[in-house]
């Protein structure tokens, strides 16, 4: 079994190969492109399973310490910079989720994207993305991780702007790229600091207790190095995982095709930020209550505010986008409280059920869109939930899959989200009770529980609006269930959404995942990795708020008539408007950053064009031109006119005049000879 680990480097290679083949040869052939992409990721999935099997078989030691394949890359003065691959329990858990979800989404996309003029290109992009994500997971060092991270950023940009004929899609792509870039720069700065202080970027090397100890004692700008570096790394994660205040790009990213939203902006790429924090957790944990609390605070804020915005959105995908932001916030809460495994567990379950929900929403949009075309209606927005309703009767498979995903997200026993979300809340609850006072864990728990209520509320609202009541548009009346390639992945994901939680149920095998993946940070000796015992009170409270929220939302919206006012808008009044406008964060950013940047750019342009730079350049240019003209004049007049041509003219004139002496009259010549002879004789005689 040990030998199977050697397959690890191959995992990202297959999709990369698929990408290259599609781009170079298969781009004219849609079927072949989709086949290559699905084949590539399918091979990755199989390879991943082999590696997972090896990890399971290798036992506890390897699951903690990991298998690794260092590759000497850059020999530097003192040492060799190693890159390479590593697999431990955590990696193996990610390797189970990522390729599987990718495969299902690829199969789904093969039908969803049909008829798109850039079908092959889509599969090239997603294959490259998959290669990036898989590289990120198996990387054993921060640099390789960062490279993969940037590949994903590029693919995200390309896929959000996939329908670039739409102005909004183009802008959304740019916004996502620029916003995440802020985080990327911070992460890169963190990497540079880390390398300059420790001389290595390999995770295993960094997390040796002596290195961590050294990092906490070194200073950068008067702060412990570990604090600065971990905050910078967290900045990267905030950008990638769309945490407050860099969350603004994710909702706009929904302009991309829905499989992309499911793959990149729900299941995998956005969780890369969480993965990064989880991977680097010992660094955050060195100084007690140092940067970890920042993670928890940002996570809490994001979890709560994301959920509040979500209840006021009408676009089916935007609801899910804010839900994703909020759920990523939960993961950050878990990590920020030191609950490594709780965060990882939620990351895994969330990937399945959120991919399911997005694919479900894609299926609904697909159906409504076809319905709209059937009804010859080109004005109805197929993503607006206000145009839906009563879809349950028309789309049984999608509906049941969607219900499973909703149950998992809301946290209904025994669906996946129940176990993973409750572990996070239990972590906060236990820490609150251990501390005995109202501190960060309490607020985190409160934000989480309120968030859970809101989550249930917006999902209830969505289910009520989409599936129940009467169709509120012609498009919804004519909606039909899409084909098998779309519904089968939904059903498979629904199974996972229902049952994946059992890998870490405290009563079964003592929380299997905990022993498998939860102890990878044990060698760093800075985290307390014991599993939190199951808290029945937490479970009861969160189940109660979830059911309450769900039925509240469902009840209010299930019989909404077309053109009727939103019941929540009536209840909340101006608050609803604020939520609908996402707390005006975008407007605030536009006012503070974009407008000032534009003003600065305008000022610079003026400075450049009108005021300083251009006049100087023009002055220098004009002076040169004048000098050149003068020199040219001198050349034509003096050198050419008087020198070269003048000489020629002189001799020409002389020739013209002198040739008159050549008369052809021999007597003239003779006369001249005679006169000259006489003169010579005269000169001789008179001695001149």
């Amino acid at each position, binding site marked *: 079994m040990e030998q199977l680990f050697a397959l690890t480097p191959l995992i990202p290679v297959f999709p990369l190969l698929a990408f290259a083949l599609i781009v170079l040869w298969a781009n004219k052939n849609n079927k072949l492109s989709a086949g290559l992409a699905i084949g590539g990721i399918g091979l990755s999935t199989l390879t991943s399973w082999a590696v997972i099997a090896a990890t399971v078989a290798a036992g506890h030691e390897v699951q903690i310490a990991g298998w690794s394949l260092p590759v000497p890359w850059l020999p530097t003065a003192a040492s060799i910079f190693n890159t390479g691959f590593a697999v431990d329990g955590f990696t193996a858990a990610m390797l189970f989720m990522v390729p599987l979800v990718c495969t299902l989404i690829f199969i789904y996309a093969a039908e969803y994207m049909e008829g798109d003029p850039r079908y092959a290109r889509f599969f090239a992009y997603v294959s490259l993305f998959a290669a990036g994500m898989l590289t990120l997971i198996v990387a054993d060092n921060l640099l390789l991780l960062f490279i993969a991270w940037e590949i994903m950023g590029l693919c995200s940009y390309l896929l959000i702007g996939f329908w670039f004929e739409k102005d909004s899609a183009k802008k959304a792509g740019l916004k996502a790229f620029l916003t995440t870039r802020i985080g990327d720069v911070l992460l890169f700065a963190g990497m540079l600091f880390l390398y300059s202080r420790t001389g290595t970027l390999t995770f295993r090397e960094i997390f040796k207790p002596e290195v961590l100890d050294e990092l906490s004692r070194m200073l950068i700008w008067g702060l412990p190095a570990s604090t600065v570096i971990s905050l910078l790394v967290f900045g990267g994660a905030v950008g990638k995982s769309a945490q407050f205040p860099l969350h603004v790009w994710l909702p706009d990213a929904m302009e991309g095709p829905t499989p992309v939203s499911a793959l990149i902006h729900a299941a995998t790429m956005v969780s890369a930020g969480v993965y990064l924090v989880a991977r680097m957790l010992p660094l955050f944990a060195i100084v007690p209550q140092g940067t970890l609390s920042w993670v928890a605070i940002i996570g809490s804020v994001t979890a709560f505010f994301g959920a509040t915005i979500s209840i006021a959105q009408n676009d089916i995908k935007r609801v899910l986008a804010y839900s994703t932001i909020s759920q990523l916030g939960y993961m950050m809460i878990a990590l920020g409280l030191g609950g490594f495994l709780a965060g990882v567990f939620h990351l895994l379950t969330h990937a399945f059920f959120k991919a399911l929900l997005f694919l479900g929403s894609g299926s609904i949009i697909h159906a409504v869109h076809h319905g709209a075309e059937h009804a010859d209606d080109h004005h109805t927005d197929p993503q607006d939930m206000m145009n839906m309703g009563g879809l349950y009767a028309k789309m049984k498979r999608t509906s049941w899959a969607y219900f499973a995903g909703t149950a998992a997200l809301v946290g209904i026993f025994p669906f996946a989200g129940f176990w993973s979300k409750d572990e996070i809340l239990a972590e906060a609850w236990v820490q609150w009770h251990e501390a005995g006072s109202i501190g960060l864990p309490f607020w985190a728990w409160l934000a989480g529980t309120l968030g859970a209520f809101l989550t249930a509320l917006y999902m209830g609202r969505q289910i009520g609006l989409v599936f129940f009541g009467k169709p509120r548009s012609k498009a919804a009346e004519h909606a039909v269930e899409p084909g098998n390639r779309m519904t089968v992945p939904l059903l498979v994901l629904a199974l996972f959404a229902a049952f994946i939680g059992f890998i870490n149920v405290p009563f079964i095998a003592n929380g299997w995942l905990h022993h498998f993946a939860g102890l990878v940070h044990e060698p760093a000796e800075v985290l307390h990795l014991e599993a939190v015992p199951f808290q029945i009170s937490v479970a009861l409270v969160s189940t109660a708020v979830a059911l309450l929220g769900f039925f509240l939302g469902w009840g209010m919206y299930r019989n909404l008539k077309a053109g009727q006012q939103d019941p929540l808008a009536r209840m909340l009044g101006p608050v609803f408007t604020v939520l609908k406008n996402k707390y005006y964060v975008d407007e605030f950013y536009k006012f503070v950053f974009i407008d000032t940047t534009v003003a600065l750019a305008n000022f610079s342009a003026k400075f450049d064009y009108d005021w300083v730079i251009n006049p100087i350049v023009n002055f220098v240019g004009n002076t040169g031109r004048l000098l050149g003209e003068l020199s040219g004049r001198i050349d034509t007049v003096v050198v050419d006119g008087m020198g070269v041509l003048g000489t020629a003219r002189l001799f020409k004139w002389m020739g013209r005049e002198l*040739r*008159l002496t*050549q*008369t*052809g*009259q*021999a*007597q003239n010549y*003779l*006369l001249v000879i*005679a006169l000259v002879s006489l003169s010579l004789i005269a000169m001789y005689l008179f001695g001149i």
Partner: protein
Amino acid sequence: MQNIPLTWWLSVATALFSLGLYGALSRKNAIAILMGLELMLNAVNINLVAFNRYITPQNVTGQVFAVFVIAIAAAEAAVALAIIIAAYRQRGTVNVDDLDSMKF
């Protein structure tokens, strides 16, 4: 004959040469010009013989030279007359003013 001074001979030669030169310069008929030339050559011959007689009587260099000049003058007259005849055939005139095709 000895008491005739050299100067006289030279004066005669000079007069003869001047007449020849004048003829060569002023006549328009090519044959007349040729005759002027012959006069100048004969003036030279007189000079040569006179100098020989008065300055180096022991040698006959001057006389030999004069004989050469006469021979050459004869040849020259033959060639010149041939040219003049050819020119006359070509142009129908022997007026040198009209024979000016050597000008620019």
